[in-house]
Structure formats: structure tokens, C-alpha cells
């Protein structure tokens, strides 16, 4: 019975960790998406100096928020986001609005896709 109790406690911790992870994923992804939208809107206003600053902030935010994501998520997906971030940085620095906006849109989709993929719903279960 002691074994079952121990396993149940660990299971409760794992479930708790899962709920916390899903919640954190949602919050972090929301923060990152808002930052991406900020970069996009400054690019649309042709304010490249601010756009560069915002894109640098986006990179820092990614490092800060997503440093623990690979513990739970597919590493390939993380790598794809990092490659995309590097491309955004270059396009913004070279003031290419079409490529910048296109890449930001892709990045936003990739980041939004992660919590959607991890959400507990019937579509994901089946």
C-alpha cells in the first residue's frame, strides 16, 4: 500500500507539473506573440530603429521564456523557432519589410502552434 501511495503522490506531482506547464506555455506564448505583433506594427510604420530594438527584445524574451521548453517539447520545433528568429533579426536589420513581415507571421504561427499542440482537448487526444 505504501508503494501505491508513493506512486499516487508522484503521479499527482506529475499531473500538477503538466497543468503548470500548459499554463506557463500559454502565458509565455502570449507574451512572445504580443512582442511579435509589436515588431510587425513598427515595421508597418517603417520605424526601423524601433523595430530593431523590438526584435532584439523579442530574442531576449524568447531566451528568457522558452529556456525550459526543450525539457518538455520536441527539440526540432525549438530549433525551427530559433532559426526563424535569426532570420527575422537579419531581415529587420537589412530593413526588408516584405521578408520581415512574412518571417514574423511564420514565427507567430509557430509559437502559437506549441500551446495549441499541448492543450488537453479531444482533437489532440485522438
Amino acid at each position, binding site marked *: *500500500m505504501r*508503494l*501505491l501511495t508513493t*506512486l*499516487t503522490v*508522484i*503521479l499527482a506531482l*506529475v499531473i500538477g507539473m503538466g497543468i503548470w506547464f500548459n499554463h506557463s506555455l500559454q502565458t509565455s506564448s502570449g507574451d512572445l506573440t504580443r512582442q511579435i505583433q509589436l515588431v510587425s506594427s513598427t515595421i508597418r510604420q517603417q520605424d526601423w530603429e524601433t523595430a530593431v530594438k523590438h526584435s532584439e527584445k523579442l530574442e531576449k524574451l524568447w531566451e528568457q521564456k522558452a529556456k525550459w521548453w*526543450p*525539457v*518538455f*517539447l*520536441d*527539440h*526540432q520545433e525549438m530549433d525551427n523557432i530559433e532559426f526563424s528568429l535569426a532570420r527575422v533579426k537579419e531581415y529587420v536589420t537589412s530593413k526588408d519589410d516584405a521578408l520581415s513581415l512574412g518571417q514574423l507571421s511564420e514565427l507567430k504561427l509557430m509559437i502559437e502552434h506549441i500551446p495549441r499542440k499541448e492543450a488537453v482537448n479531444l482533437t489532440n487526444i485522438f
Partner: protein
Amino acid sequence: MLLVIIRTLILYATTVLLLRVMGKRQIGQLQPYELVVIIMISELAAIPMQNTGIPLLSGLIPIFILVTAQVTLSYISLKSERARGVICGTPSIVIENSRIVEDELRRQRLNLNDLLEQLRLKNVSDISDVEYAILETSGQLSVILKSEKRPVEPQDLKISPEYEGLPITLIIDGQVINDNLKKVQLDMVWLQNELGKYGIKNIKDVFFASLDAHKQLYYQLKSSAQ
């Protein structure tokens, strides 16, 4: 490369630990639900081992969940007879009073050749010798022979054999097993004296020593000490 080594060791250690948690019974005689767990665990442990792109937790958490589910089912089947019937199934009598129970055989989808093969494996060549043959939930066949066909036991001959007990291991590879020594209420002084009687001065020279129920010491020296 180093990453693969570390991940493999972590997965191996966790799987061994969790299989130990599942208990000794599981390895010897797997019930259907236990077999499922073993197959799934082996697959779950192998995938993150090969692919470093998959988080280690994606393998470890399902393994843990499976073991927890398995332990829970074991407890349920231990406490409830009804649940045991559902989870493990019930034994089936396939031979009763030397007659093959056709319906049961059909229900278990066990053909006659398989039944005869299992009987032969139990050293039974003639169905007429069998009182009962029971197909256990683990898939093994238990055979109960007719009383006149059973091997003779001392009880049948009205003989009372001497008590044999279980020999207790006292020394393994030069190391004294103190717990066993305490169990038989003896100490190191006694052991050294006893070995001294055979001219053994150093316990480290003994490869193996055991004590039977009549306090008779059996020993074997290491080849280097002979």
C-alpha cells in the same frame, strides 16, 4: 555522442528501477496486462534513447504512468476477486476426469495438438492419467494426475524423512554474510573456530560456505587458496 550515452544510462536506470517497483512476480509469470506494460515500456524507453530530439521526459513520464497503472491494477486485483477475474481472467479446466472439455478448449481457442504438446512438456503422455488439466491465467497448463498415477511420496510409504531445512549461506567469495550468521544465532568466533577445525585460518580464502539444518558446515576454498 556523449548525450546518447547519458540519456541511455538514465533511461536504463529508470526502467530497471520501475520494473523492480512492479515486483518480482511480473518477470516470471506475466499476466496479459503485465505483458502489455512490458512491451510498451521497452518501446517507450528505446525511442528517446535513439532520438536526442525527443525530450527525455516524453519517454520517462509514460513509463512512470504505465508502471503506476500496472501497480494500481495489481492492488485492485489483489483486493477484489471480481476485479481479478476481469483483469487477469479465470483459470479454465480443459481436462476433467480424463475427459477433454471440448467447449472450454474451443472457448480458449486451444487446439488439441497444443494441449497434447503442453501435456508432454509436463511428462504426461496419456490423457487417461490426468484427473484435471487447468489452463492458468498466465497461459501455463497445470496438470493434476490421478492418485494412482502420481509419483510415490514418502507419505504414501508411511515414512517420515528427517527435517532438511534450508542451508544458510554464510560466506560468499570471502565475504561473511553477517545477517545470515545472526539468523542462525551464531557469531564470527564460532565461524572462525569451525573453519579452524578444517585448517582454514583466513576467511578470505573461502569461496563459499553454508550451514545446513544440522549445523553441518559445507565449504569450498578459492582455487588460489588450495
